[in-house]
């Protein structure tokens, strides 16, 4: 066996050990992939979200690259400004990545995100979706799925999840993709592809949170895999006006090959009180999102 590592060198050096994430946190897993693609040639724009906690406090930062912490609603606006500034100064080969949670994207940052998408500013927006406001104490966000317990929906959320990828596809941006932390190679390829396209790129990253979803920290990857295998999260890319299904989700176009949804839900304490009717609702939500994807595949 050769002594050269089979991993990109920067994957090991980007997220430094000793950061402030909880046990089994999916965010550093995602950031490692960002590091594997861009190395330290990246400017990370982080609004108020779990990542601003994970990266630590003032004298140090756990991300071996440039990070700018900004106000909650302004991630996309600041990233637009930075990418325009870099372009004007003639700096090439540095990628601007806005890295925001679901609250900073689907709820609070929606206006600036929509503005940046409409202007087609040149940067990558990554929304990592842990499906609630986790670091402030697990409050519901609009990306929380129906039936899930949070501290502000103690009986389970009644409304269904807001699908931000659909909203971004409607903006007509050049590249929209969904990824999952359980498939880092898939996420790597999508980031690489996005880096080669000029204009606004949006990547949705599914990131199960052990604390907020009430499962054991060791199961983070397993739960993320099950989300894809049950069809709850569909991995696809959208470019040239068409949806292209990614490898892990391709066999699941056939409904009989999807695992039953209950296998995904049973690991999570937040779905313990789910009723039979709510389960049916979730199943029909999954079916309808697959139907929607199939419509855009032609």
């Amino acid at each position, binding site marked *: 066996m050769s002594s050269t590592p089979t991993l990109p060198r920067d994957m090991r050096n980007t997220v*430094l050990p000793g950061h402030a994430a909880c046990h089994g946190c999916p965010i550093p897993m995602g950031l490692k992939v960002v590091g594997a693609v861009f190395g330290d040639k990246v400017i990370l724009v982080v609004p108020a979200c779990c990542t601003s906690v994970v990266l630590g406090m003032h004298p140090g930062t756990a991300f071996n690259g440039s990070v700018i912490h900004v106000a909650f609603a302004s991630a996309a606006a600041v990233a637009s400004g930075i990418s325009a500034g870099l372009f004007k100064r003639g700096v090439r080969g540095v990628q601007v990545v806005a890295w925001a949670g679901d609250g900073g994207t689907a709820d609070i940052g929606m206006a600036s995100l929509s503005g940046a998408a409409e202007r087609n500013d040149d940067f990558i927006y990554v929304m990592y979706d842990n499906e609630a406001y986790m670091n402030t104490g697990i409050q519901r966000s609009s990306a929380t799925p129906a039936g899930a317990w949070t501290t502000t929906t103690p009986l389970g959320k009644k409304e269904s999840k807001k699908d931000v990828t659909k909203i971004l596809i409607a903006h007509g941006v050049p590249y929209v993709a969904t990824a999952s932390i359980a498939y*880092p190679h898939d996420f790597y390829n999508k980031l690489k592809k996005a880096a080669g396209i000029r204009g606004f790129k949006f990547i949705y990253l599914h990131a199960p949170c052990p604390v907020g979803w009430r499962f054991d920290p060791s199961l983070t990857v397993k739960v993320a895999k099950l989300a894809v295998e049950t069809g709850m999260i569909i991995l696809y890319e959208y470019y040239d006006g068409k949806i292209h299904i990614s490898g892990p989700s391709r066999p699941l176009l056939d409904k009989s090959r999807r695992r039953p949804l209950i296998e995904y839900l049973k690991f999570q304490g937040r779905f313990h009180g789910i009723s039979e009717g709510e389960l049916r609702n979730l199943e029909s939500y999954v079916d309808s999102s697959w139907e929607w994807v199939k419509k855009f595949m032609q």
Partner: protein
Amino acid sequence: MSNLTKKAKSLHKIPIARPSIGVAGRTGTWRWMKPVVDLSKCTKCYQCEIYCPDNSISVEALKGAVVNYEYCKGCGVCAEVCPAKAISMVEEEQHGP
């Protein structure tokens, strides 16, 4: 450099954070379960290193997976993703620093 920017620089030193290891202290003290690698079973597939959230397990090409116990939080993701079941979680004898 104009006088104005010189003055501004001397007045306001911008506190920039630098990348450093251990921003949250020695996170190894958070651990109550400890991953132990059975190197005879390790196939050097790099799965543990790819998924480790703390970046504190690394696969050495000749030896196998090595855990950095100073910063490992003991979440158990490596033991869960290991296809060869070479990593087992053992309870710590001593808790805290």
